[in-house]
């Protein structure tokens, strides 16, 4: 048996078939249908539409040329969703980060490379150490009674003098100050411009808080816009937390975006979820104070003044009408009384007149009855002397005297020729 015959008996496959064979075997154990979790430290990251990263064993030395490397990639169709989730967790895939990748093996024949297609990323491992340190710090602060120390500081009901710890160039600064400046309240902002991320930030933040605490301020606001958990790490720093807890001025925080809660937030007097919200809260406090102590009293005074005037007007109007009616009634009563008296008098007078008239008529009739003319007509005559004296008795004349005898239709003259007295 020659070497050639031996060679002929071997199953010889070409390169392409080799890779197909390898792919089949790998896929049967680690392929798409058998994805696995792989833990490693990110050594390189490159993102351009898709994500490419090299993973090595955590803690391995970069100088070790023989350390195993896993060339992982995450296609854009998967990466976009994963990236959103990772970002929301406040984590980024950076060199040095330890991460668990879920995926499957693939073989890229043209370069002869074994790759790893990523389907999912677990960042719990990344967060673990940070979380532990953070919890330890919170525990220490709690034991020392510092979690509520700043919260017990008395807060001005009208916090208009505001110390601001922020970076002037950041959106957080603009968002916060924008709320105050647009409010129309006369906020006075004393800025301690400082870096709000990076390794130097904790010391700078601590110094800024302490410096502002020396001023006569109503409140100190620590402001920083949203960012990754790493960007916001300075607000989990013990120096910053102790500066806030020890401040005699109430310290408000507006750090990151919704969901972030730093240790600085925990020890602060008041925490807002964003710089914008913190600005709104300050404005609301002043607004509420103004509403309670200016607006509502003004409204009450206005309403009371109008009400009091209306009440006084009604009172006067009623009294005026009552007076008019009372006087009118009284005068009518008097008029009725006078009318009754007048009527009574009138009736009485009429009776008097009637009686007088009757008396007069009786008198008249009596007078008529004694009318001499009537007596003369009946045959009686009146004898008078020539000088007009009535002759009543025989003795009133003497024989020879001439007398006038008045009869009904004239006067006769007669001479007394005899006299004879008769006994009465």
């Amino acid at each position: 048996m020659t070497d050639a015959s031996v060679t002929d008996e071997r199953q010889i496959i070409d390169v392409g078939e080799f890779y197909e064979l390898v792919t089949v075997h790998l896929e049967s154990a680690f392929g798409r249908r058998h994805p696995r979790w792989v833990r490693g430290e990110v050594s390189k990251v490159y993102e351009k539409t898709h994500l490419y990263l090299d993973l090595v064993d955590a803690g391995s030395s970069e100088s070790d040329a023989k350390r195993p490397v896993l060339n992982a990639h995450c296609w854009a169709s998967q990466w976009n969703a994963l990236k959103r989730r990772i970002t929301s967790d406040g984590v980024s895939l950076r060199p040095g980060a330890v991460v668990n990748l879920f995926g499957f093996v693939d073989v890229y024949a043209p370069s002869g490379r074994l790759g790893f297609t990523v389907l999912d990323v677990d960042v719990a491992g990344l967060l673990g150490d940070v979380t532990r340190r953070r919890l330890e710090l919170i525990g220490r602060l709690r034991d020392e009674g510092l979690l509520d120390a700043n919260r017990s500081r008395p807060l001005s009901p009208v916090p208009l003098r505001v110390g601001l710890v922020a970076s002037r160039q950041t959106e957080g600064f603009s968002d916060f100050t924008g709320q105050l400046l647009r409010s129309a309240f006369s906020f006075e902002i004393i800025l301690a411009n400082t870096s709000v991320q990076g390794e130097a930030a904790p010391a700078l933040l601590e110094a800024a808080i302490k410096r502002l605490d020396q001023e006569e301020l109503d409140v100190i606001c620590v402001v920083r816009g949203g960012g990754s958990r790493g960007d916001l790490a300075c607000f989990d720093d013990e120096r910053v937390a102790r500066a806030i807890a020890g401040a005699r001025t109430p310290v408000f925080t507006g750090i990151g975006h919704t969901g972030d809660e730093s240790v600085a937030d925990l020890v602060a007097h008041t925490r807002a979820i964003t710089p914008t919200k913190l600005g709104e809260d300050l404005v609301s406090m002043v607004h509420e104070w103004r509403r309670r102590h200016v607006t509502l009293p003004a409204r009450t005074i206005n309403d009371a003044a109008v009400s009091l005037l209306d009440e006084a007007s009604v009172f006067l109007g009623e009294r005026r009408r009552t007076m008019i009616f009372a006087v009118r009634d009284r005068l009518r009563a008097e008029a009725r009384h006078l009318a009754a008296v007048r009527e009574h008098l009138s009736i009485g007078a009429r009776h008097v007149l009637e009686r007088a008239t009757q008396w007069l008529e009786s008198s008249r009739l009596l007078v008529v009855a004694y009318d001499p003319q009537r007596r003369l007509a009946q045959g009686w005559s009146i004898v008078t002397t020539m000088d007009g004296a009535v002759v009543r008795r025989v003795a009133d004349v003497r024989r020879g005297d001439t007398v006038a005898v008045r009869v009904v239709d004239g006067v006769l003259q007669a001479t007394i020729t005899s006299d004879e007295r008769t006994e009465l």
Partner: protein
Amino acid sequence: MTVGGWNEAAEELNAIVASFDDGEVSVDDLIVKLARATEIIEALDARLVATRATVDELAPRIARVATDDE
């Protein structure tokens, strides 16, 4: 005869009205009391008019403060 403070004057006015209601007022008293009541009403009305004028001047200024929140 002077007119006292609002409450004092109002009480005096009430007393006059009450005496009218009782019907015990003579015609002579009626004139005296009516004259006094008229004097009080005119004085109070003058005060009311003056006060309302002041309130009318101040109310819009207060209202501006009172409605700032709306």
